[in-house]
């Protein structure tokens, strides 16, 4: 299960230079097994929201609960794929993927068996004993996804995981992610600044307004997968979302 309820969430960063209100009164219900994309202008608090759900940051007001249990800190039940390169460079692919299982005290043979399953799911069987520095950017993010999945989390949080990849690799990774979602049926909360990516992936797109981030609109996308990026309805939704983001951006 992986039902996420966000209620009245507010977060400000207090520093000597002043206070930044990153999120203000955010309310959102994410259904179990749902694929939700968060979009919004840069600096509107997308990463902050994801980090609060992960338990890496604490809210000033409001709550986040998963299946009715309020979160208080990081937990392997909520996997995270970071925007930047986060694989442990001193561990090879299989030991990166098996890291969470190792923390749970699962025997080496067993955790390698499980890790191998997720390594095949992301298509990296040939690279199971390679070290991160030997992999391309796309492969690294594949490993990061496998590492998060190997813990069998209820919710998968992804912060612009394909942001640094070239357009072609990015499209292929999006397809693969959808197939992984089909197979594992996780709840996925996916942050992106690419509206195209959001319209391609999401069942619902949550549009945040510029700082402080509040929910501006939520757009249901009823079409089944796979989607055709070149269709007119795709273009229409994309234009609508872009317009929402533009209007939400504070005047410079």
């Amino acid at each position, binding site marked *: 299960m992986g039902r996420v309820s966000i209620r009245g969430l507010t977060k400000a960063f207090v520093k000597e230079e002043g206070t930044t209100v990153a999120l203000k009164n955010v309310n959102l219900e994410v259904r179990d097994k749902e694929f939700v994309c968060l979009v919004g202008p840069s600096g509107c608090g997308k990463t902050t929201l994801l980090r609060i759900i992960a338990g*890496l940051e604490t809210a000033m007001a409001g709550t986040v609960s998963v299946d009715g249990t309020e979160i208080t800190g*990081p*937990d392997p039940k909520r*996997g995270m794929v970071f925007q930047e390169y986060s*694989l*442990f460079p001193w561990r090879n692919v299989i030991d990166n993927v098996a890291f*969470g299982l190792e923390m749970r005290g699962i025997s080496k043979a067993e955790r390698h068996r499980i890790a191998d399953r997720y390594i095949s799911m992301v298509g990296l069987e040939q690279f199971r004993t390679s070290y991160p520095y030997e992999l391309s950017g796309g492969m690294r993010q594949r490993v990061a996804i496998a590492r998060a999945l190997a813990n069998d989390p209820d919710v998968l949080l992804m912060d612009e995981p394909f942001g640094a990849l070239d357009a072609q690799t990015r499209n292929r990774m999006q397809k693969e992610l959808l197939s992984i979602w089909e197979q594992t049926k996780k709840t996925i909360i996916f942050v992106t600044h690419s509206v195209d990516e959001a319209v391609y992936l999401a069942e619902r797109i949550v549009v945040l307004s510029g700082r402080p981030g509040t929910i501006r609109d939520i757009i249901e996308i009823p079409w089944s997968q796979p989607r055709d990026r070149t269709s007119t309805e795709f273009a229409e939704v994309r234009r609508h979302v872009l317009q929402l983001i533009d209007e939400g951006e504070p005047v410079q």
Partner: protein
Amino acid sequence: MAMKIQLNEQRQRRLLGIASLVAATIVWQLVADVVVQKPFILPSFTDVAAAFVELAGTGTLLPDIAVSLEHFAIGLGAAFLIGVPLGILMGWFRVADSISDPIVEVLRPIPPLAWIPFAIIWFGLTTQAAGFVIFIGAFFPILINTYTGFRNIPKVFVEAGKVLGCDTSLELIHYIALPAAIPSIAAGIRIAMGVGWMCLVAAEMFGVSKFGLGQKLWQNYYLHQMPNVVVYMIILGFAGLVIDRIFRAYVDRQLLKWRSGEVV
């Protein structure tokens, strides 16, 4: 083709290196024999070579090396056993940093050799006294590099560890911080070995042992056996080089698995 050119280039470099060493030796010999003409001021290459053969014949060179290595090992071992854990505590826990940092900053600038009087008073003329002086020299590079290694760990590694179920400080240090800081700690040990080796000659100066490369160097100086002094100088330099090379080869092999290019 490119490979061949590279090989040729390498060979050329090596030949040039040997030629330069030979030339320097010839110049040394000529200056000593023709210009200075006093073996006490500047022993010639052949004086030193003869002294070496004679010293090798007496059979004390090996015990000298063994005793020096013992002093060195005591100092470095103690520096490692205290420096790494303290560096970890200071790098990971704010409180430990606030408590220790002022003390470290006060003690660090004191030259290691300034500790020699207290080394003798505390330990007497013992092996431990020599080890202590080397320890002082080796301790700070290891401490500082462990500390900075811990401080420079990318935050995302720690956070990735946390969301994967690595919760306690002990687990995070063991599984994330320590492996991430190993290159920095290894570089610190390498610096410490260099400083420790330099302290060795002074540590053996005040007669803590009957053997030792430093001890023999000073003894021959008091006896005005300058060719012998040069023999010990050369052995000290050469042994330091070998120790450094062995350590570097070992660390490179361990770290090259996960890092590309030159490591320490």
